[in-house]
């Protein structure tokens, strides 16, 4: 066994679980500090997320956002690129979705609008990632810096557009007009009235995100492009040796990554709000980084991590409601702890786990 190598079930199962438990233990300590019972808090959190139909609906709704942004970060990861710009790409992608809906909603049913909205979101998100990708590939400007900067530019641009261009005359709200039925995705509670989903906004975009998971898996592990992306990410010199152009792979990967982030707008803009709102991305793009890290860049892992973060979002809101001393800010602290342990401190427990498993695996090593 090579040093640092772990069996898959440890790499993808045990390690994330240990990180998660550590995050919850520290969160529990924080809850204790403010004089509440951590077990009580956990109970409310889990109940709020999964205990009743509407909670489940909201959890899945949030998870849909995280799947899109998580996939976006993961695809870039496979090429060794750290795309921090999911937030801005999703924001601009929302504009693409909204433009498609605004143009078509009065004339055609939703299922005609949908492909154009998906295309619009993907194209705008990809476009927003193109410039950082191109600058990285051609000029060596670091993608982390440029994508962060592009988040700010996206934010300012959208404020301008919503306040000055897209806002209907006479409206006081910085948003577009509401979309007609032809610009709204069906909600699951309408599609499956048999399930109790309360008033939750979970919609058809959930299935679109799952399709995206399958497509991303195929792309990364079953196509030549994916092979080139992974080769470039794992060993850039081997990629050059194999005749793979670093410029081409960097640009294409960033386009795909941006497109995935941009598609988050389907869920929020076309699915839930039926309009383009100021700051509708609400940090989902950033959470995508933690989701991708925790999910180890694999679509299955990303789905699981997305549901977990969906639970934290939805259950956290419930918890803040039920135990008023645990404020909204406390929930953010708990979410941040999970991100910290799953993402930033990913390697904290790793050496110990590797040492533990090498003791057993040492004798079975392949000569």
């Amino acid at each position, binding site marked *: 066994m090579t040093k640092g190598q772990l069996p898959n079930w440890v790499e993808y199962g045990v390690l994330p679980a240990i990180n998660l438990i550590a995050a919850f233990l520290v969160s529990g300590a924080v809850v204790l500090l403010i004089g509440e019972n951590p077990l009580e808090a956990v109970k409310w959190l889990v109940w709020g997320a999964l205990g009743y139909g509407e909670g489940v609906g909201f959890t899945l709704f949030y998870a849909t956002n995280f799947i899109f942004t998580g996939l976006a970060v993961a695809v870039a990861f496979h090429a060794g690129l750290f795309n921090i710009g999911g937030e801005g790409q999703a924001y601009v992608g929302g504009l693409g979705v909204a433009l498609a809906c605004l143009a078509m909603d009065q004339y055609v049913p939703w299922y005609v609008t949908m492909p154009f909205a998906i295309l619009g979101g993907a194209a705008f998100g990809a476009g927003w990632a193109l410039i950082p990708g191109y600058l990285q590939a051609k000029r060596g400007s670091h993608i982390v810096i440029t994508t962060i900067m592009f988040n700010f530019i996206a934010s300012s641009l959208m404020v301008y557009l919503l306040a000055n261009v897209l806002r209907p005359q006479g409206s006081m709200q910085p948003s577009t007009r509401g979309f007609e039925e032809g610009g709204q995705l069906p909600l699951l509670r309408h599609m499956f009235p048999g399930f109790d989903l309360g008033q939750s906004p979970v919609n058809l975009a959930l299935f679109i995100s799952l399709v995206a998971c399958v497509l991303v898996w195929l792309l990364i592990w*079953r196509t030549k492009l994916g092979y*080139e992306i992974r080769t470039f990410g794992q060993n850039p010199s081997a990629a*050059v*040796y194999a005749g793979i152009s670093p410029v081409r792979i960097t640009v294409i990967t960033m386009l795909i990554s941006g497109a995935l982030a941009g598609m988050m707008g389907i869920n929020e803009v076309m699915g839930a709000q039926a309009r383009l709102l100021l700051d509708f991305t609400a940090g989902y793009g950033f959470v995508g980084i933690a989701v991708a890290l925790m999910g180890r860049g694999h679509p299955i892992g990303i789905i699981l991590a997305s549901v977990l973060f969906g639970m934290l979002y939805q259950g956290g809101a419930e918890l803040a409601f039920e135990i008023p001393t645990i404020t909204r800010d406390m929930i953010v602290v708990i979410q941040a702890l999970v991100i910290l342990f799953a993402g930033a401190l990913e390697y904290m427990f790793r050496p110990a786990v590797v040492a533990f498993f090498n003791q057993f695996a040492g004798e079975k090593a*392949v000569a």
Partner: protein
Amino acid sequence: MTISLDKQSVADVTTQGVAAIELRGINKSFGPVHANKDIDLVVGKGSIHGIVGENGAGKSTLMSILYGFYSADTGDIIVDGKKTEIPDSKAAIESGIGMVHQHFMLVDPFTVVENVMLGAEGGAMLSEGIARVRKELGRLANEYDMKVDLDAVVGDLPVGLQQRVEILKALYRGADILILDEPTGVLTPAEADHLFRILRVLRDEGKTILLITHKLREIMDVTDMVSVMRRGEMVASRKTAETSMAELAELMVGRSVLLEVNKQPAAPKAPLLSVRDLNVKDERGVMRVKNVSLDVKAGEILGIAGVSGNGQSELLKALSGIMQAETGTMDLVGHTIDLSKKHTAADFREYGMSHVPEDRHRMGLVNSFAEYENSILGYHRDEAYSKGMLLDVAKVRAEALERMDKYDIRPNNPDLQVAKFSGGNQQKIVLAREIERDPDVLLIGQPTRGVDIGAIEYIHKRIIEMRDAGKAVLLVSVELDEIRSLADRILVMFDGNIVGERTPDASEQELGLLMAGVTDEAAQ
């Protein structure tokens, strides 16, 4: 081991006074690699002592031990007659040892004064330190004839002057013993001459100098004593005046038995690869390949011999499309290619070239990938591996398994990560991939580096088979034995130039001299 340490000359040195450095029984291993074996070395005070050896002979490891980058597994270091522990470079500096690295440790945007002061600022405010450095540098520059503009930005200085700054840095820190690692590698001949003048002045002022090089001419030029390393051992020490380049070359290369390779005489036909006027610069803008022209004919193995770092790597990279050349054309199986234009390795593969790169870990393989994924690296775009829009994984895996059986790659599990195979098996994976494409031209760099003896024989056999099948094989290796036993013609590269062509029955001494840059005219 053929020649043991020359006790006589050691005695000579020690009778003249205290040795500046004495190493006793130094051993250092990196995993299974025994980089330094029982090294004894005595360096006389106030002398220039050269250490020669091929790449990988263990020179740099030994110097790193002396400078505190590595600690020896066993053995003693005695500096000025006192047994000294050197756990880090700070301790080395305190014992009066200074090092001038092959790649300078300078901060480019800083001025000369700032660079010299770095790590010896003294106090929170800089002004005092700057004044002290200025005064001291003025004195050093006068004493040793080492003029340099103290306020120049180091990045703007020519390489020779940057090196001078490195030497000044060491002297400023009070070094009495200077280690120079391949100091002339980046210098022009004129700069090298100036460096040697400085070194002589330093010696005459009582400093001790250890010069690491593989260039014999420099050793003869400037040193008083010379020690030869080969495969981790110190095989001899000589007074420079009493030895010759021929003897040193022989000591460096050794007299090992030729590996037995069964091969018929070559039957070369028309050239499949012709290179004309190739000039290649490396990433740092240094010209590494100079006016190289060569032909590789169908049915022959052309060997490129040379100490590593003399342009062979860049030659391979330029010919395989990985690196853009300054000038040069290549005729590859009927295609004329301008190598000064941008190409990708994929273009040349299409024309029938395969390439086994020198460094399989950095280039030839993706260590984290499964074996079967590595078995198509570079050929993954081939339609044969497609199934609609997807990669035909089942087919790739089946083909990989077939090759593993054919090449006896163990364990024969195509799903296993490539990093988990042994070096020999990894090399066979690369070789299988490149040979099974049935190329017309095969470039091979260091085919048996880090490969066990069993696999070496197998790999050699395959290379001969390629030749016998009428392919053109260009073989680059730093193992002279390997070149001599495989190649039908040998070109020797030194400092980017082809300095001579020989047949494989040329003596090792002759080849060794060429590899050390002693050309026909100069070797008496």
